[in-house]
């Protein structure tokens, strides 16, 4: 590095002071709080505690540093934010962290420690009579540690939520968004099962491509009824077991334009019309890292969200030897026993259409955009395919039945990959480096029942 005192260094030194003392110009809404008489809008009510608490902030994560994309990848600033002895982080990101259960101090520590992709969460279908249980997701905004000049608000936009009111939609111009230091609770009554996405909708081109994105899904009311399918787990309220499954895997597609990320880290404007994806990610990683385990899972805390264990500071726990994957904690490996049905929940918040191909096993498309494959007169419109074309912002629910185990290895391997080969390859060493993972089929009875979403056989679980 050179010895110039850069704009970034200046911000690092003065940023905290700017946040506090210059609030009048930088954060006028903090001041307004003091200037404006509060309007009494509601009587005090004891609302239920939030089911989930998310925090929007920035951070760094790791992608294969080779091939280089000078000067954008790997971003040399990443080394400043990487623990000693760990392969340096390469890429500046924004994202959400699950801070449910953290103390206030632990939560504040998570500024500059976000993850990619953001946490997966889910809930059960709401019904006024059978299941009048709302999902309450609290959001706070920890600010951007590297860019205190960017006082952007954040929101959670549940992409695809039907009949939303603007208050809960997270689209900032139609209602409100959450400035730095504030908290808002989104209350959802999800009446339609299926696979959705969520993302921040503030400056959405930037905040989405910077990583404030993930997948969310809704289990149907029919779940628990074993009369249609022995597991009692279904993608939809099918009434006949046609969407029953034994295991479910979320596969979330996103993209990294190295220059756009570098620009945000280096206080440059991006011309988003020049967007070009350099990395195509599956659950926040590229192949072969997609096959590695999840970060250590907190099973008890994973009732609504795939929750990674945290340390005393509230930071994400890591697997020994994979510390560089601390901030892309999600595995994409799919494992099952022969004869089992596996539900794949696929969603794409990249900007390009993907062609996800499962070679050697047919998939039945049972849902698209959180809608069962049914015409208005009930006609079954599901279909069988090996390749799913998934547009930007689209979701699919596909079920495959694991074929018989052939051997001789411990499992048979089938490849699930993006047939748009330019999105499956980043020319990284040791693998194809893009949206590719494996389906591993074990002999019947080998694997126990799936305990949580995207369970990997080598996960550390507590």
């Amino acid at each position, binding site marked *: 590095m050179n010895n110039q005192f850069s704009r970034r260094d200046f911000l690092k030194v003065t940023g905290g002071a700017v946040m506090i003392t210059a609030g009048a110009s930088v954060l006028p809404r903090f001041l307004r709080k003091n200037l404006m008489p509060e309007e009494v809008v509601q009587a005090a009510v004891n609302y239920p505690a939030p089911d989930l608490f998310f925090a929007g902030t920035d951070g760094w994560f790791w992608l294969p540093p080779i091939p280089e994309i000078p000067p954008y990848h790997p971003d040399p600033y990443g080394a400043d934010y990487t623990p000693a002895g760990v392969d340096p982080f390469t890429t500046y990101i924004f994202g959400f962290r699950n801070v449910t259960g953290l103390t206030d101090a632990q939560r504040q520590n998570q500024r500059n420690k976000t993850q990619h992709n953001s946490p997966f969460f889910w809930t059960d279908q709401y019904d006024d009579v059978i299941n009048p249980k709302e999902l309450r997701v609290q959001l706070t905004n920890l600010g951007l540690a590297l860019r205190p000049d960017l006082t952007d608000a954040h929101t959670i936009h549940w992409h695809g939520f039907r009949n939303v009111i603007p208050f809960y939609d997270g689209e900032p111009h*139609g209602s409100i968004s959450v400035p730095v230091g504030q908290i808002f609770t989104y209350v959802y009554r999800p009446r339609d099962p299926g696979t959705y996405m969520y993302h921040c909708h503030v400056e959405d081109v930037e905040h989405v491509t910077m990583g404030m994105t993930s997948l969310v899904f809704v289990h149907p009311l029919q779940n628990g009824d074993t009369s249609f399918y022995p597991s009692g787990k279904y993608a939809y309220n099918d009434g006949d077991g046609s969407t029953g499954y034994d295991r479910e895997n979320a596969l979330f597609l996103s993209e990294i334009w190295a220059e756009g990320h570098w620009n945000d880290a280096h206080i440059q404007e991006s011309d988003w019309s020049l967007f070009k994806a350099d990395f195509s990610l599956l659950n926040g990683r590229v192949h072969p890292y997609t096959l590695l385990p999840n970060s250590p899972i907190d099973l008890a805390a994973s009732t609504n969200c795939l929750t990674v264990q945290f340390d005393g500071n509230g930071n994400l726990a890591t697997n020994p030897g994979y510390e560089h994957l601390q901030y892309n904690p999600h595995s994409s490996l799919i494992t099952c026993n022969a004869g089992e049905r596996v539900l794949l929940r696929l969603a794409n918040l990249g900007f390009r259409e993907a062609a996800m191909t499962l070679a050697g096993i047919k998939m039945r498309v049972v849902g698209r955009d959180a809608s069962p494959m049914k015409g208005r007169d009930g006609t079954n419109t599901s279909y069988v395919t090996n390749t799913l074309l998934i547009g930007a912002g689209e979701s699919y629910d596909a079920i495959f039945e694991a074929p018989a185990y052939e051997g001789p290895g411990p499992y048979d391997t089938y490849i699930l990959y993006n047939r748009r080969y330019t999105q499956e390859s980043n020319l990284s060493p040791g693998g194809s480096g893009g949206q590719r993972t494996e389906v591993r089929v074990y002999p019947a009875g080998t694997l126990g029942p799936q305990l949580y979403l995207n369970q990997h056989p080598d996960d550390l679980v507590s």
Partner: protein
Amino acid sequence: MQPSKFKWVWLASVLVLVSLAASSLAPAQSAKAAGPTTGIVCTEGPSFNLTAQSGYIQMSDMNTVYMWSYGSGTTSGNFQYPGPVLCVNEGDTVEITLKNELPYSLPTSLIFPSQENVMADGVLAQPDLANDSLTNSVANGGSITYSFVASRPGTFIYESGTDTKTQVTMGLAGALIVRPSMGANFVYNRASDQFTPEEEFMAFLSEVDPYQHAAWEKSVGKGKNYNLNNYHAYYWLLNGRGFPDTMADNNASWMPNQPYGALARIHPFNDDPGAGQAYHPNPAVERFINVGTEEYPFHPHGQNGQVIGRDGYPLEGPGGQDMAYENFLVNIGPGQTWDVLFAWHDAEAYDSTTNPVNVTVPDLANMTVGMFYSGSPYLGVQKTMPPGVSTLNQCGEYYIISHNHALFQLDAFGQTLAGPITYLRIDPPLPNNCP
């Protein structure tokens, strides 16, 4: 990143003008025919005169871009982009006389990709390869008449058939709507495809590479030398406009060549006459049309549309089975048209006194407040904004965004929050106090 102050001033001024136009002041109309402020503006047939010509349109970043397109009439001077929306009835014999007033003595033609048995000056239309044309072309200054029987209802494209990679990307395209024999408030001849006539909208998607357009503006030589391998759009458009102009009324006076707005203004759906809310039993329809070269993954927030037809064919099985499907992402490809019924239900019927939202409504002074927000979670309720915050909200109506989800397309040559974005405006149930 915070948008520049300049952009917000511009946006606010546009929207103030919108609300003025919607108020009691007489809407400032261009020379074009007056019509509804939102929704599809039809040019009625079945006989039409179109003149291919050059003109200019305004982009969200205040650039002005040279285009080719069509105007109604037999002479140039009525340039508009996109071309006029041609509306006919099923069974009509449609006659379109094309006058060629393009620059540089270029030939041109019209194709109707989803129509059969198209005639050109009375004989079956055939390719004219000598003029790089998919159909009979017309020399500069001349006229040609195409005709066909509108044999089935739906949404269709008309566009240039000559040097298509140049002429269509330069803007020579428009929409054709064929209304079914069941009635103008149906999309296809199925009872299930009925819609509310005041809630018929169009999403006409296209993009512009300003370098290509500038090359043709300078000279025929530069235009012909433009290398389409370098084609890269920097503007993406909805009904020929970029956001926030997409929100402005049809025939907004400050965009004389871009007459079509894209705001979808509806009322809450309610098909139960006994329910407390106003009876509003039919959905709205959005006719999606992609005349660009890219996919447009269009995402309306807050509702799953019902895709009932594509390319002018209802989605049905050989035995008439309903093959319509729901989606929240209309992933429309180049040259496709999709017909999508949609509605917004007041599913939770939140009410400030009888059924409040189950959360503490935050003090607006502590939040970042959007420019369309009423200040209240409740439909039809407006609250006072904190000091320093203004809103364009008129009567407590809801604004729910619709936009392309290939988000790099929400851009105008580096200016963000532009391109194919519009809003679904949901007015409180009638009677209401909305202007």
